[in-house]
């Protein structure tokens, strides 16, 4: 395993432009522009931004689901085109889209095999993952019978199954009730305490404020600012103020509510 200078994620001058054709005319939409940042190993990094600011685009670029128009990305020193890079990541999307025809056990077995887990180790890992998310007694039920919360927990299980050093969560707390929110926060902190690098996007400033070591603020596809915990931990509500400041100064106009 080749780790490079202690960075789990390196995003180097990445731009993503979406090209679409409508009635023969080419339309270009900018997703992110000249994004450059790094996430250190063992860090808990939060990506904040308004709707449409490019959070999901950034995450998909890191995962290789989108291809950058310019720039390069790497995970633990491996370019994204290398398969080794993808074996080091666990991903939880905002809404986990899972194969409804399979049971919980079958889907974890599938993902485990695709993640190159040896067959001697896989059954134990599946048991551990299901136990972690409290789904042992539902392991033989098909996912089409699961509730939304249960599907979210299967999503977490598949992200952790192969014990990856890097975890990427896309808006993990959206739509959760207060108990679910607390459980998710505890899981994220617990994983980070075990030495995992956690990178997640959110628009919940209060949650990000509580647990992250560093925060990146995206505004209209640009990384406007990166803040260190020391910059907001001194007083309550500081991160929100810093966030609003950053957005307003980047956008350059007053927000619609104040007009």
């Amino acid at each position, binding site marked *: 395993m080749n780790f490079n200078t202690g960075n789990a994620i390196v995003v180097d001058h990445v731009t993503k432009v979406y090209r679409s054709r409508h009635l023969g005319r080419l339309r270009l939409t900018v997703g992110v522009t000249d994004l450059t940042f790094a996430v250190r190993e063992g860090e808990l990094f939060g990506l904040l931004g308004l709707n449409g600011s490019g959070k999901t685009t950034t995450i*998909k670029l890191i995962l290789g*689901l989108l291809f950058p128009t310019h720039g390069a990305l790497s995970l633990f020193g491996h370019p994204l085109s290398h398969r*080794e890079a993808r074996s080091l990541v666990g991903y939880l999307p905002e809404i986990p889209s899972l194969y409804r025809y*399979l049971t919980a056990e079958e889907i974890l077995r599938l993902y485990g095999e695709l993640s*190159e887990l040896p067959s001697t180790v896989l059954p134990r890992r599946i048991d551990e993952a299901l136990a972690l998310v409290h789904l042992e007694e539902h392991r033989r039920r098909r996912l089409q019978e699961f509730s939304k919360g249960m599907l979210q927990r299967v999503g977490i299980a598949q992200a952790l199954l192969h014990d990856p050093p890097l975890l990427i969560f896309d808006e993990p707390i959206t739509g959760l009730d207060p108990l679910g929110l607390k459980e998710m926060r505890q899981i994220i902190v617990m994983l980070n305490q075990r030495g995992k690098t956690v990178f997640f996007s959110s628009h919940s400033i209060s949650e990000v404020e509580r647990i992250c070591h560093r925060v990146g603020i995206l505004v209209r596809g640009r990384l406007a600012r990166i803040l260190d915990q020391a910059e907001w931990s001194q007083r309550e509500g500081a991160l929100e103020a810093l966030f609003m400041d950053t957005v307003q100064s980047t956008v350059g106009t007053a927000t619609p509510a104040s007009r």
Partner: protein
Amino acid sequence: MTAKALSITRYTVIQLFRNKLFSILGIFGCILLGASLLIASLGGDQQLRVLLDLGLACLEFLALVSGVFAAVTLILEEMEARTIALVLIRPLHRAEYLVGRFLGLLTALLLSMGIMAALHLGLLFFKGWRWDASYLVAVAFSAGKIMVITSLALFLSLFATSSISALTLTFFLWVLGHFSQELKFLANKTGYPAFTALVKAIYYVVPNFAYLNLKDHLEGTGVMGRWLGGAALYAVCYTVACLTLALGLFRRKEF
């Protein structure tokens, strides 16, 4: 064939057999086989021949319908449902995913054809038919046709703008592929060199199902050993070419 592609193949077979569409088509197939007994009774002395031909036609038709519909939605459905994301973030080549899905579909289709063929044979033996190995050859080459058309459908699903257009184009090519002899005749007859070149190009590009349509030649399959080898190779090559083209398109897909 890698272990990961095999995992994808296995999951695809499970998905297809748990899919209601496959079950409905399976039941429909059994009903058609039963109905063929009634139709065959009108055939006078040739009841067995009619039963044989009806059964082989039903087998191929059902495999065609289920195969093409499944192939067109094989990747598209996963893209729309976004289930493909949690697979492609894993350390596997997109080729492994594509080949695994295709082989899973092919396996499910072959199993279904096998089950229907077994039922059909049961009916035939019940009616006093004597075993003839050309039956197996006919079924095998029907399976070859299905393999070719499903690989083409998969390629077209990634090429076309919608699943409806991919389906339409696939069925059109199925018909055109049986028309190959007439295409060749047309190419030789016309006096315009440009038109001849165009028709010849279409003749070579469109899959030539006449090579594989051996259920229409049950009397003659015994004398064509070398031909069968060439035809089988043609089917495999055409399938590989379609899958390679599909991979070329799939490699650059974003999700």
